[in-house]
């Protein structure tokens, strides 16, 4: 059992980078737009299912579908913010009311998207895995898709972090997240920033969804559980903290592998929720959060 | 023993000290004024006394009892009540009901419905608003809403009343009326500690004045002493040349 520990931890870290990327999208949407997007996982699911459709029906390589799916889901997120959430914000008498309403609307979107998907693709599993060859690394064997996904996740994660901290656009985004009124006064087009950020969050979910389809069987049901994981990670890392969610993702990845490998796989999900609840009680702002 | 005293009262928000090592004492029956430029920490000090925020360090004692860590509702029941800088009336009720809340919940012992109603009516009459008892409070002018806040606080039968910028937004006639009200409250045996910007009011009713600046107490004394204090004059002259307040 104990020899498995290093392997579990390394696998956990690899899983964790993916969770971190997914969570980054969610935390961005909450931090900038104040929307806790319960439908986040549905974007992941859509991307995964579209990957299957594009590759099985149109023969496009699952490695390249991101060129189509990426902009598509970015656009969807962008649109949702400029139409739905912007209108919601305008009508809400106060920020907490808006957050509550946005949460409910996101849940409505969850039902809409997941059932539109269910009507389109049905309820079955689809297998569209690629790069399944095993490779030896640090004395254990991993699949190629696992490793490549991990590398991509880290690369994109770092890129997003640098974008937010070093570029002007990124600074504008952070300013809007901290104090939208002042940012607006300083000439920032806050509407554009919000729409962009929401779209970016959706894009990150899409990338994770595509990568997930490389590794696992997918179905129209995979959205919700991934939203839950993202939620736990985001809470641990701090609602609104981008680096926080990446670090937290890795931690959660490790914990989940340890639980499933050393205890009981069926209890991973309850453990997630238990962690979520304990976190909220002990340190609601998470590791790096400031709200 | 002073009815209210504080030693080394300090409050940090993040890295910034909003209130820093302030000592103060208020004796029974006094009307003490608390003045200072905007952002000096006056309302924060009130919030520390009334229990809205916990102190970062220092101690506050009311009637000899430590207030540190007590929640506002307990402090209220001990006999310390307050009004708020931004009027916090219960916008979803009529005027009398607003005051009734104070009468019902602000006293340490249980109050019957009839007694609470009587007390509320009396408090409302004291501030001169009996005629508006049944009106939705949203319909009242700001001046009158402030008066309801005072009535509400009085209905809790306090021994000490914190008044936070009662005169803000009042015209000179209204200020005079409010000054009269403050004196009448003191005549009832209630000690008053008041934050104020309107100098006429401070000079007119307060026996003693404390001056805060950047969270620190920089002066204390009688009205004469303070109005002659060079540091205080500098601060206020400085503020007048800058702002258009």
């Amino acid at each position, binding site marked *: 059992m104990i020899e498995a520990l290093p392997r579990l931890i390394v696998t956990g870290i690899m899983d964790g980078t993916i969770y971190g990327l997914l969570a980054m999208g969610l935390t961005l949407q909450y931090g900038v737009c104040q929307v806790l997007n319960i439908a986040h996982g549905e974007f992941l699911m859509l991307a995964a299912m579209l990957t299957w459709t594009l590759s099985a029906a149109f023969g496009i390589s699952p490695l390249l579908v991101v060129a189509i799916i990426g902009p598509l889901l970015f656009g969807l997120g962008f649109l949702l913010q400029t139409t739905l959430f912007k209108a919601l914000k305008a009508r809400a008498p106060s920020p907490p009311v808006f957050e509550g309403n946005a949460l409910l609307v996101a849940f409505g979107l969850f*039902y809409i998207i997941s*059932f539109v998907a269910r009507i389109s693709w049905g309820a079955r599993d689809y297998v569209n895995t690629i790069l399944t060859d095993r490779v030896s690394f640090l004395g254990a064997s991993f699949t190629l898709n696992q490793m490549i996904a991990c590398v991509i996740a880290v690369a994109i994660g770092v890129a997003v972090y640098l974008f937010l901290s070093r570029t002007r656009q990124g600074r504008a985004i952070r300013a809007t997240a901290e104090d939208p009124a002042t940012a607006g006064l300083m000439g920032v087009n806050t509407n554009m920033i919000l729409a962009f950020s929401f779209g970016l969050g959706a894009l990150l979910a899409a990338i994770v969804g595509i990568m997930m389809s490389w590794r696992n069987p997918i179905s129209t049901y995979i959205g919700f559980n991934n939203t839950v994981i993202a939620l736990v990670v985001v809470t641990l890392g701090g609602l609104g903290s981008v680096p926080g969610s990446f670090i937290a993702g890795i931690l959660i990845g490790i914990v989940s592998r340890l639980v499933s490998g050393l205890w009981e796989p069926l209890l991973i999900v309850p453990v997630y929720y238990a962690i979520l609840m304990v976190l909220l009680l002990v340190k609601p702002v998470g590791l790096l959060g400031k709200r | 023993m002073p009815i209210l005293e504080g030693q080394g009262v300090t409050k940090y928000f993040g890295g910034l000290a909003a209130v820093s090592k302030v000592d103060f004492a208020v004796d029974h029956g006094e009307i003490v004024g608390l003045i200072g430029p905007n952002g000096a920490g006056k309302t924060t000090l009130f919030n520390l006394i*009334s229990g809205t925020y916990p102190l970062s360090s220092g101690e506050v004692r009311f009637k000899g009892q430590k207030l540190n860590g007590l929640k506002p509702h307990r402090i209220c029941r001990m006999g310390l009540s307050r009004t708020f800088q931004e009027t916090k009336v219960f916008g*979803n009720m009529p005027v009398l009901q607003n005051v009734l809340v104070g009468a*019902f919940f602000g006293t340490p012992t249980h109050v019957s419905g009839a007694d609470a109603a009587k007390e509320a009516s009396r408090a409302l009459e004291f501030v001169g608003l009996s005629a508006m008892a049944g009106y939705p409070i949203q319909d009242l002018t700001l001046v009158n809403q402030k008066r309801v806040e005072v009535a509400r606080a009085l209905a809790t039968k306090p021994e000490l009343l914190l008044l936070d910028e009662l005169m803000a937004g009042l015209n000179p006639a209204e200020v005079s009326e409010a000054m009269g009200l403050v004196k009448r409250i003191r005549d009832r045996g209630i000690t008053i500690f008041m934050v104020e910007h309107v100098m006429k009011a401070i000079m007119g009713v307060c026996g003693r004045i404390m001056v805060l600046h950047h969270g620190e107490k920089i002066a204390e004394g009688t009205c004469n002493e303070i109005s002659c204090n060079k540091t205080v004059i500098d601060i206020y002259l400085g503020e007048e040349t800058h702002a258009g307040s």
Partner: protein
Amino acid sequence: MNIASFASAHKKLVTAGFILLVLIFLATLPLYGNDYYINLLTTILMYTILAVSWAMFSGATGYMSLATAAFFGVGIMAMAFLYGTLPFPVIVVIGGVLASALAFLIGLVTLRLKGIYFAIFTFGFVMFISQTAYYTDVNILGNAWGHELPLMDPGMLHYAMLGLTVMTLLTIYFIRRSRYGLALLSIGGSEEAAEHMGINTTMTKIVLFTISSVFMGAAGAIYAPALIHVEARIAFNVFNSFVPILMAIFGGMGQLYGPVVGAAVFGYLDRTLRVELQEYFMLAFGIILVAVILFLPNGIVGLLPTLQERLRRLTARLRKGGETEQHANT
């Protein structure tokens, strides 16, 4: 004197009369209705209890609770386990008590959190209890196939649910008129001021949360036999947390009867659509949820004053003819 002016002059009489009629209808239904309609009305009553209980707390305090499904589910599972071993009413009470114990604990630890964290926590709690209960039931207690409940007389079930509904509504009514209701109202007006006027706002909220959960748990216990087959994941379905919210918001949170209206409408839709067009029902639910939050924040009931006002102005204009043009410009 025409009907309209009589009605507005004797508003209370009319309301009381209306309520009485509805009660008589519901109470006598089992005598002449067929099983399908009785079950339908029982379901509507169940949703009414959930919607009204949810609004009781979340409407008054502004804290959005997503724990409804947890309390409801506790009641269902209580009945699933205890049916037959104890008298029916006793199990219902146990369901309510268990739910309230849970609510008290949750309230104690979470009601000091900010609104969004409270919402996330209660959501996480429903999912946690759903998964853990399922795991425990299947793997530890060995009930791999869930629990079967024998068919109960629909009429009896209906009376039980009706009785609970009346109790719930009466409780809310009396709370509103009580000192406690005044405290709640003031917390809604300004929580900070309420706290400073001597109200222990945290405890007040916890108590309210606990009271609201009693009815949810009891409703679950009564409803369980109608489900016939009970399984932990069905009992704790998070959907049951969102449906009452939609009902309450759709109906309108300003008045007591708002959630009742919402529950009636959605209970009917749920029962008639859900069985045949399951997926389309969920889709419709999502669309209506979004639409209601966006366009009907005050619910259907919130439209009433606007409609009344428009009607009044219209009839005034018609009656006064040309003169009205000058008066209408106020």
